[in-house]
């Protein structure tokens, strides 16, 4: 094997220093702190008690359950809708760039601003959504103030916000598919469905794999949209609390950084495990 060039280290140095200092060191520190208790100014070793605490804390389980449900529902749904919309724009719509820009708009708008607007749309008493639902004689639930609806509301909001990024990336991927494939398919008389499933989808697999990984990781770290939608709270009665909410609350508000870091380590492990599973799965699909 050829040895690396020494000069490469020089060029890599800034990144290596940055990554070690701002990514690897915090992870190690979090791991160490998860075995300590007390306030930041006076940490002392406690062994596994932080882990014991979070495992017996119902609030922690609720946070993990909400986060996993959110990730498992919102990501596939958003991805499916994105593929549909992207394919529709790509194959059927005339002024593509206009629609592409429109769909990208939510991505450049701040989540907090969108969240505030959605808070009014979702309002149970005077919200636009319930106005429409009532007009259609459908049940109009209290989206924001009913604890059992919180997660649904967050998922709807999450699906909507992630469409923008997904569609733009998918449009790029669709453009990169060699048009000759379709020409030849047409020559042999392939139907639209066949063209989609035999040509488009297989060509999109790498992009979908990328989006799936990014979306799942982002979904596990959900915080801002909950904050914005429920006015700075994790939903009525903490019903929409998420892992990151739990961590922030324990670290900054309650002042038990050890507990927060124990939760961080668990979340880190969950994300790592899910990403690992995903890569395995994608390899199987991609490398038939």
């Amino acid at each position, binding site marked *: *094997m050829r040895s*690396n060039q020494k000069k490469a*280290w020089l060029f890599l140095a800034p990144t*290596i*220093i940055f990554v*070690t*200092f701002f990514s*690897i*060191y915090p992870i*190690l*520190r979090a791991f160490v702190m998860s075995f300590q208790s*007390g*306030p*930041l*100014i*006076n940490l002392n070793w406690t062994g596994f008690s932080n882990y014991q*605490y979070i495992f*017996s*804390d*119902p*609030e922690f389980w609720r946070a993990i359950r909400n986060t996993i449900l959110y990730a498992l529902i919102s990501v596939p749904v958003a991805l499916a809708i994105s593929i549909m919309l992207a394919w529709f724009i790509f194959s059927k719509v005339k002024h593509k760039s206009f629609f592409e820009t429109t769909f990208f708009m939510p991505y450049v708008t701040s989540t907090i601003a969108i969240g505030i607007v959605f*808070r009014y749309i979702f309002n149970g008493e005077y919200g636009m959504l319930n106005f429409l639902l009532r007009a259609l004689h459908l049940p109009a639930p209290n989206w*924001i*103030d*009913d*604890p*059992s609806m919180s997660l649904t509301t967050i998922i709807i909001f999450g699906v909507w916000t992630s469409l923008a990024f997904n569609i733009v990336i998918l449009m790029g991927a669709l453009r990169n598919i060699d048009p000759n494939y379709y020409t030849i398919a047409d020559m042999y008389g392939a139907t639209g469905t066949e063209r989609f499933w035999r040509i488009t989808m297989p060509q999109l697999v790498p992009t979908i794999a990328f989006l799936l990984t990014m979306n799942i990781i982002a979904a596990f770290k959900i915080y801002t949209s909950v904050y914005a939608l*429920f*006015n*700075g*709270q*994790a*939903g*009525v*009665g*903490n*019903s929409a609390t998420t892992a990151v909410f739990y961590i922030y609350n*324990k*670290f*900054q*508000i*309650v*002042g*038990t950084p050890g*507990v927060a870091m124990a939760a961080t380590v668990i979340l880190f492990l969950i994300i790592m495990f899910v990403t690992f599973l995903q890569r395995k799965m994608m390899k199987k699909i991609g490398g038939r």
Partner: protein
Amino acid sequence: MKFSKKLAMAAVAALALVGTAACSNGGSNSSSSSSEKIPSKITKKTTVVFWNAMPGVQGSTLKQLTNEFEKKNPKINVKLENQGDYNDLQAKINSTLQSPNNLPTITQAYPGWLWNAAQNKMLVNMTPYINNKNVGWGSAKASGIRTELLDGAKIKGTQYGIPFNKSIETLTYNADMFKKYGIKKVPTTMDELKQVSETIYKKSNHKVVGAGFDSLSNYYTLGLKNEGVNFSDKVNFSGAASKKVINYYADGIKKGYFRVAGSEHYLSGPFANEKVAMFIGTSAGEGFVKQGVGNKFTYDVAPRPGKYTMQQGTDIYMFNHATADQKAAAFKYIKFLVSKSSQLKWANATGYIPVNESVVTSNEYKNNKSTKLPAKLEDSMKHLYSVPVSKNSNAAYQQLNSIMQNILSAAQKGQNVNSQINAGKQKFDAAWKQ
């Protein structure tokens, strides 16, 4: 390949060491300086940094008062640093405690936030300053500050804080609606509150809800206090007294005559839109009520029903790392802020209650016609209560809000609240034990 791995490992280790060293630097000079001599005069230019969380009118009034102080004391420069809202301020203090040199000279805070700081001797005991004749008043009594408020600013019996922007819970009601539905007497007990709420709800054909409480944590804590139980880790959440307090509200919600603020956090909005006839909330919110109500109807303020009311709002605390001059200058500033003339201006402009007893009883304050609180304040604060400061009491108090929300939403859907009470007990106990 192997070499590069080793190098990377070494780099990680080295950086980790540098990191820990940098972090442990700050903590070393937190030596206690309670025996420090208090300078009688500020002769050098001294800067006092004051972290606060005062928005809008409250912030601009604080700025005015500070300018006035600086004019009187040209050697002292007070830097006001706004940190956002209370949660932001609390988070900022929490994370800065590990590098004390970056802490301000003084900060607004609830005593519960600083329990750990007090444990680690990072706060200044104010008693020597209060008793000092030059920078203080000579004695706590001479300060004119109400005793309950001073006691509320103690952590484990030590006077670490001086009360500053304090508010209490009061009952705000729609006086026109009272007339319309023939209600002659403003409720003074919880039973009367229930009766009046029921009457309004019935007579308005279920259009107007009787009453609601802004802060569910306060509702529960005061409810227990009125039952003779103090807020502590001994509270049995599923016990008889606790259930009585919870069911009072839950029954009202089931039958429709009570409601909660929900994600809007405050009932002043529904109150201004005449969807609720009365609500119990902080006196510092009167500005918002006044603005929302406008000329639509007449509102008025009354003492909170039940014996006790909550005193809330922050005090001013001083950190130990400052120089002797800074501390003395900061105390002079605090003394100025709680003086009669400053408190009169402050209370009139913001709706906070004057911490200075002589202002509460003064005609200048009572005759303030622009808001409703001043005339009623003396009666409203006969029995004050505040959340006792102990380990995790603040966390448990905040947890109560979400527990109560869950219970009351179950009630709203007509479900039995007992399973939620049991779930709440688990969470409540977990909050005390972290």
